[in-house]
C-alpha cells in the first residue's frame, strides 16, 4: 500500500515538473537563466526568437553575449551588486538597457532580474521584454502633446488677449450682461492656459527635459513668498493664509522655481477646498535631517475612495462640487513628480480638528552636505572631487566609480569646491559645466588661478563642450579633458585613469582579486609605492573593473567566495594586450602549462609578501623600482 502511494507521488512530482517546464517554455516573455559565474543554463522559446540564436548556441555561453559591448561594464556592475544583495530588481525604460541579437542589431529592453538560491548556488532568472514599440508610441505621444500644446497656445493668446481688452474697456463700455458673459469666457480661457501649461510640465518631467537648478534655499522664505503670491487668489475665495514655522530657515537643496510650484499647487488646492472665511496654514519644521513643509486646510476632507489615486494624472474626485473648482486634475501629479525628483516625498492625512494636511518632506541641506564626503572611502583609493548640482545623480556616480577604484566627494558650488581642495588631497576634479549661471566654468577658471590647484587635472563634462573650449588655451599648464554628455562609466573611468596616470607619472596598474579583506589590505599597502592597486572581493566585480579599464597585471586568489578565481582566466585571455596573472592562494595550483600564468604563490607561506613583490617586480620590470615597504 505504501509502495503504490509513493509511486503515485513520484509521478505527481514529474507531472508537476513537466507542467512547470512547459509553462516556462511557452511563456510569451523571454526568459534566460544564468548561474553564479554568469553562464547561461536555461532559455525558453521566446528567448530564442527574440535574440535569434538556437538554444544550443546559448546554453553554456556567457550571459554578456546578449548585452551590447558598450553596456557590458554596466552589466557586470549590476551582476556584482546582485551577488552582494540578492534581491529581485526591475530595470524599466529609464534604465536605458539594450539587448543584442545574433545579427549584432540592438533593441531597447525592460529587464527583471530574479535571484534564486538553489542547491547549486545563486541562479539569476532574467525576464527580458523588447520595448521598441512602446518607446516608439511614447515618442509619438510626446511629440503630439508638445505640438498640440504649442498649436493651442497661439489661438489662445489671441482669444485671451481679445477678451482681456474687451473687459478692460478697450472696445467701449460693456452692458452688465455682456460684461458677465465675457468674464466667463475670459476665466475659461485662462483655465485652458493653465491646463496646457500643466500638460507641458508633466510632459517635460516625464521625458526628462525639465531642467532642475539645485541651490541651497530657505524653505521658510519660499513659503513666505508663496503665501504673498497667492494672497490675491485666496482673497477671491475669502480664505486667510497664515505661516506657522519654527524660527528656522529650514534649509534645503532644491530648484527654487520648482519648489515654489509645489507649494503654490498645494496652496491653491487648499484654498479652493476651504470653506468661506476658512484659514489655510503653511508650516515649515525641521527634524531628523528632513525639512517638512505642510499645507493644511479646514475643508471637508478627501473622500475615502479617492485617496488611493489622488496623485495620478487627471485624478479628480468625481463630485460636482470638486469638478466646479476649476482645477486641471494635474496639480498633485506634478507635485509628486517634482518632489520625487528633488529627492523627497509627499503624502497627506486628515488634520486634527478637521480638514486635510499635505506634507512634503525634503532632505535638509545639512543632510545633503553630510553626504559630500564619501563615508566608505578607504586609504588606498584615489579621491576625486565632483562639482555638480544634482545630489541623486552624484550618489549614483559615486557608486559606479567606487568599483573602479575611485572615491568620489561632492562639492555643490564652486566655493565648496575650493574649500574642499584646500582641506584635502584630490587626484582630479570632475566638473559639471551645465550648472546654472556658468558656475562650472567659473570653478575651472578659479582652479587655474590658485597656486595649489593650477596643475590639477580637470575632467569637464557638458552637453556642449565646444562652447567652453575656446576659453581655455592649449598652453594651459594643467590637464583638461572634455567629455561630451551623455557620459558612460567606461569612458569616464578611462578618462580619469588617463589624467591621473599622466599626473602621477604613469605607474603600472594591478588588479587584486581575493575575498579576504585583510589580504587585500596588506597587499595594497605593500605594493602601493610601485603600482596602482585596485582591490575587489568578487569575480563579478573583477569582470566589471576589467571591462572599464586596462590592467598590467592581475593577482588572483583561487577561491573567491563560492566561485573559482580561475574562471577569470578566459576573460583575461580575451584582453588586448594579454594580461599576465600571478596566482596568490592558500592552495596554489600548478598552472605552469598556462602561458598567461607568471607565477603561482602560496599566500600562507611566511615569505608570501616578499615572494609576491619579487614576482611583481619580475613581471613588470619596473621602470623605476623603489623598494616596496614591508619587504626588507
Amino acid at each position, binding site marked *: 500500500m505504501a509502495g503504490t502511494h509513493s509511486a503515485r507521488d513520484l509521478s505527481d512530482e514529474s507531472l508537476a515538473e513537466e507542467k512547470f517546464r512547459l509553462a516556462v517554455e511557452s511563456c510569451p516573455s523571454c526568459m534566460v537563466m544564468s548561474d553564479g559565474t554568469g553562464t547561461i543554463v536555461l532559455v525558453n522559446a521566446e528567448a530564442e526568437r527574440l535574440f535569434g540564436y538556437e538554444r544550443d548556441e546559448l546554453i553554456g555561453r556567457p550571459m554578456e553575449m546578449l548585452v551590447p559591448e558598450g553596456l557590458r561594464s554596466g552589466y557586470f556592475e549590476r551582476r556584482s551588486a546582485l551577488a552582494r544583495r540578492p534581491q529581485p530588481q526591475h530595470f524599466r525604460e529609464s534604465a536605458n538597457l539594450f539587448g543584442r541579437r545574433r545579427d549584432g542589431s540592438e533593441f531597447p529592453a525592460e529587464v527583471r532580474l530574479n535571484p534564486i538560491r538553489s542547491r547549486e548556488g545563486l541562479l539569476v532568472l532574467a525576464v527580458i521584454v523588447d520595448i521598441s514599440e512602446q518607446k516608439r508610441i511614447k515618442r509619438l505621444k510626446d511629440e503630439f502633446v508638445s505640438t498640440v500644446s504649442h498649436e493651442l497656445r*497661439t489661438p489662445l*493668446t489671441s482669444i485671451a*488677449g481679445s477678451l482681456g*481688452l474687451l*473687459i*478692460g474697456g478697450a472696445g467701449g463700455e460693456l452692458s452688465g450682461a455682456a460684461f458677465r458673459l465675457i468674464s466667463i469666457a475670459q476665466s475659461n480661457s485662462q483655465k485652458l492656459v493653465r491646463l496646457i501649461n500643466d500638460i507641458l510640465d508633466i510632459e517635460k518631467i516625464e521625458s526628462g527635459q525639465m531642467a532642475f537648478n539645485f541651490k541651497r534655499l530657505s524653505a521658510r522664505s519660499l513659503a513666505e513668498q508663496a503665501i504673498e503670491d497667492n494672497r490675491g487668489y485666496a482673497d477671491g475665495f475669502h480664505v486667510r493664509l497664515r505661516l506657522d514655522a519654527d524660527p528656522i530657515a529650514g534649509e534645503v537643496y532644491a530648484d527654487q*522655481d520648482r519648489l515654489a510650484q509645489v507649494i503654490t499647487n498645494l496652496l491653491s488646492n487648499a484654498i479652493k477646498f476651504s470653506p468661506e472665511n476658512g484659514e489655510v496654514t503653511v508650516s515649515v519644521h525641521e527634524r531628523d535631517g528632513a525639512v517638512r513643509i505642510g499645507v493644511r486646510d479646514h475643508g471637508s476632507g478627501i473622500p475615502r475612495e479617492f485617496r488611493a489615486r489622488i496623485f495620478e494624472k487627471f485624478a479628480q474626485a468625481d463630485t460636482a462640487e470638486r469638478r466646479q473648482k476649476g482645477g486641471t486634475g494635474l496639480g498633485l501629479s506634478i507635485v509628486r513628480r517634482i518632489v520625487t525628483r528633488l529627492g523627497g516625498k509627499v503624502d497627506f492625512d486628515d488634520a486634527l480638528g478637521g480638514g486635510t494636511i499635505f506634507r512634503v518632506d525634503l532632505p535638509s541641506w545639512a543632510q545633503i552636505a553630510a553626504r559630500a564626503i564619501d563615508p566608505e572611502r578607504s586609504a588606498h583609493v584615489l579621491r576625486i572631487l565632483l562639482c555638480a548640482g544634482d545630489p541623486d545623480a552624484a550618489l549614483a556616480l559615486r557608486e559606479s566609480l567606487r568599483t573602479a577604484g575611485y572615491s568620489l566627494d561632492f562639492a555643490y558650488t564652486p566655493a565648496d569646491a575650493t574649500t574642499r581642495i584646500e582641506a584635502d588631497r584630490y587626484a582630479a576634479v570632475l566638473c559639471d559645466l551645465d550648472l546654472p549661471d556658468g558656475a562650472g566654468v567659473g570653478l575651472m577658471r578659479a582652479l587655474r588661478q590658485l597656486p595649489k590647484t593650477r596643475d590639477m587635472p580637470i575632467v569637464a563634462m557638458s552637453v556642449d563642450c565646444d562652447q567652453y573650449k575656446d576659453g581655455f588655451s592649449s598652453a594651459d599648464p594643467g590637464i583638461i579633458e572634455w567629455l561630451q554628455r551623455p557620459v558612460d562609466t567606461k569612458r569616464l573611468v578611462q578618462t580619469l585613469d588617463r589624467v591621473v596616470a599622466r599626473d602621477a607619472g604613469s605607474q603600472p596598474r594591478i588588479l587584486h582579486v581575493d575575498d579576504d579583506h585583510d589580504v587585500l589590505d596588506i597587499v595594497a599597502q605593500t605594493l602601493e609605492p610601485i603600482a596602482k592597486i585596485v582591490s575587489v572581493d568578487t569575480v563579478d566585480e573583477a569582470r566589471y573593473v576589467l571591462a572599464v579599464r586596462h590592467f598590467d597585471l592581475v593577482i588572483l586568489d583561487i577561491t573567491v567566495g563560492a566561485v573559482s578565481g580561475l574562471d577569470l582566466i578566459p576573460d583575461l585571455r580575451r584582453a588586448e594586450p594579454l594580461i599576465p596573472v600571478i596566482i596568490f592562494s592558500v592552495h596554489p595550483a600548478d598552472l605552469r602549462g598556462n602561458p598567461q600564468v607568471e607565477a603561482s604563490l602560496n599566500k600562507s607561506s611566511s615569505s608570501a609578501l616578499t615572494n609576491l613583490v619579487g614576482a611583481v617586480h619580475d613581471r613588470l620590470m619596473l621602470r623605476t623600482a623603489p623598494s616596496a615597504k614591508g619587504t626588507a
Partner: protein
Amino acid sequence: MSATRILHVDDEPDIREIVDMSLGLNPEFEVHACASGMEAIAAAAEWSPSLILLDVMMPGMDGPATLTQLRENPATSTIPVLFMTARAQTREVEHFIALGAQGVISKPFDPMTLASQVQSHLQALNRA
C-alpha cells in the same frame, strides 16, 4: 515730447493686432508691426525703434536667429529686445539673455498691462 517707437514682430496677424491695441493704451507709444524676422531686420535698421518685441517661434527665421542678426549689424546692435514666448524655464530665459535679449514677456500676456510692462522695462534700461 517725441514718441517711443516699439517694433513688434509676430507671424500671427491676430496677435499683431492685439499687441497693437494693447500697446496703444500708452499714448506715448508708436507701434510698427512686422510679420517675419527678415522684415524686422530691415525695419529695425530703417526706423531705429527704442525697443523690439520679438516672437520666438516663427517659420523661416525664428526669434533667436533674428536677434543674432540684429546684434551683428552696427545699426541695430544696441536696440533692446524683449522676447515674447510661452512660459519659459529659467534655463531658457538665461539662454535668451546670453543671446543678448534684455528680457522675456510670457504668452499669453495680459493685454491691459502689456504697455506698462514694456514701459517698466524701458525705464530699467534707461537707468542702467
